[in-house]
């Protein structure tokens, strides 16, 4: 993948280029690292649709999925483990950007379950859980700006 001068110019002008996608394939193949080095990507954002596509395509998750199933993990736990593992790796990959930009860039966003959008307590509980599971300073917890989810919980 050759460098993209237009994205480099945008970046030099102060625009932070984010990738609106993540998958284990992108992590394992070195594709994300390449996008960081040649496409000026300094952030990654995810959502349930992105993880749905990642988990239902290819075989990158098969081995870990089998291990988790053998351990008796339920579906929610399996999905939580697979996705937070990916996000943690992406956080590590973008850690240099996070450090050199003093935290302006190098962020990876992980979304709270959208079904909790109208439940303040559950939103806070899951946000704390995701924050602890990923355990990286450059993680962003994505919550919707609904009255219930954000007004009390953002504080």
């Amino acid at each position, binding site marked *: 993948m050759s460098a993209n001068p237009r994205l480099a110019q945008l970046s030099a002008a*102060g625009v932070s280029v984010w990738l609106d996608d993540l998958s284990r394939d992108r992590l394992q193949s070195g594709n994300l690292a390449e996008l960081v080095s040649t496409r000026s990507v300094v952030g990654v*954002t995810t959502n349930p649709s992105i993880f749905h596509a990642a988990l239902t395509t290819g075989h990158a998750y098969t081995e870990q999925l089998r291990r988790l199933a053998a351990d008796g993990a339920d579906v929610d736990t399996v999905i939580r483990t697979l996705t937070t593992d990916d996000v943690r790796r992406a956080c590590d990959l973008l850690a240099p950007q996070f450090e050199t930009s003093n935290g302006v860039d190098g962020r990876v966003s992980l979304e709270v379950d959208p079904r909790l959008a109208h439940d303040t307590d559950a939103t806070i509980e899951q*946000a704390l859980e995701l*924050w602890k599971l990923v355990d990286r*300073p450059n993680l962003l917890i994505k*919550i*919707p*700006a609904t009255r219930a989810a954000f007004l009390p919980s*953002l*504080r």
Partner: protein
Amino acid sequence: MIGEGISVNVTLIFSIERYQAVIDAYLEGLDTARAAGRDLAPSIRWPRSSSPVSIPKSTHNSRRSAPQKLWLCAVQRHWRMLAWPITPSSGTSPPTDGPHSPTPALDGNARSGHPPA
């Protein structure tokens, strides 16, 4: 969550009023974190660009578009952020010069240090 030291990405904001509420909630969260004695250094970041923020003159009238109003709102709240008291020992003071210096300017008159009207 901000009060707990968690970085938050608030999504799906569709009105200026909600945008203002988000910024206010964020600042309240920082107050909570500060009152709890948390290190705010990981929570407060400054623009990396030294380019001044400017708003075209066309936005200074009653016929501002929604994005223009949002932009103005963001800049105004940013000024509130800059005025926010920072504990010297926390090491979070914004630099006064260099590439990370926040130097918002509104039609060239904001360098005097006053928030936009």
